């Protein structure tokens, strides 16, 4: 099971629709400071269901919508879609390809979709639950977080072990 494609539109600095085709193995994302690399990481965490806006470096949930630039107006919506290759049948749905989509509007309203059908955030969590995808702290490490792994309270480290059980 692996991610085939990531589509980002209106999310943070991705004002224009952007598509990443991913292979299994290693994909490296490179570029200058402030170009949008960590924003891609945020997009993945977000579409997988990240609810704590502080983990996305924001203050409120609409902070992920493109806020405009010198030359462009702010947008009204952010949308990210993640397409997973499920030919191995790991996910409990009878499709060889599963697309998870998340949208948020300026009003704060959110939409969630699985294969273009509206659903609840809860359905996305349940879909991915047994795979640990995006949920285990040790599989998604944000910028600057690596040092915290050793600095956390020793009880938080127990939690890491519990997640691996």
């Amino acid at each position, binding site marked *: 099971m692996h991610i085939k494609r990531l589509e980002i539109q209106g999310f943070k600095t991705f004002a224009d629709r952007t598509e990443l085709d991913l292979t299994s193995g290693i994909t490296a994302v490179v570029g200058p400071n402030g170009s949008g690399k960590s924003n891609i990481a945020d997009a993945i965490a977000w579409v997988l269901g990240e609810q704590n806006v502080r983990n996305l470096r924001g203050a409120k949930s609409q902070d992920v919508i493109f806020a405009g630039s010198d030359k462009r107006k702010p947008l009204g919506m952010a949308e990210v879609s993640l397409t997973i290759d499920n030919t191995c049948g790991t996910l409990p749905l009878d499709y060889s390809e599963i697309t998870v989509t998340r949208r948020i509007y300026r009003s704060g309203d959110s939409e969630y979709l699985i294969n273009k059908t509206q659903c609840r955030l809860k359905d996305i969590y349940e879909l991915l639950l047994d795979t640990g995808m995006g949920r285990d702290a040790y599989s998604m*490490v944000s910028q600057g977080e690596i040092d915290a792994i*050793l600095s956390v309270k020793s009880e938080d480290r127990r939690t890491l072990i519990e997640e691996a059980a």
Partner: protein
Amino acid sequence: TRELFMDTFNNVAEHFDYMFKRLFGGGRTELVLTDPSNLLETGVEVIVQPPGKKLQNLLLLSGGERALTASALLFSLLMVRPSPFVMFDEVDAPLDDSNVERFAEVLREFSKDSQFIVVTHNRATMEAADTLYGVTMQEPGVSKLISVRLTDEAERKKTG
């Protein structure tokens, strides 16, 4: 359950020691439960000794040694309970040239069973990658993706 936690704990401790030795080229480690009688609330202490040095408090380790130790812990957790997809954002940033080479080698190995997305500024890590995406901001404030390099191996993986 107590047994499940202890099995996982011992498993992680063993793999952590293995990963630490691979990334540091030697040395030793210990994971210690602060309160073995109370597994619901116990803490987990991490004690490490880089090769040739003395066993000391984690606090005294250098920036690069801490990053390498933390990645050893991450990789050991991934060995115990693999994840189909892993994302690392600049986890290799404090590593010097020889440490990042070993890190990249471990990454390549793990990538046989898991898909990785790594954000990096580091050449050795870039060279370990199958696919490379460049993010630019030619128009201020707006990200644009460019220069995708797919190795032949990645082309093959993509078409299945």
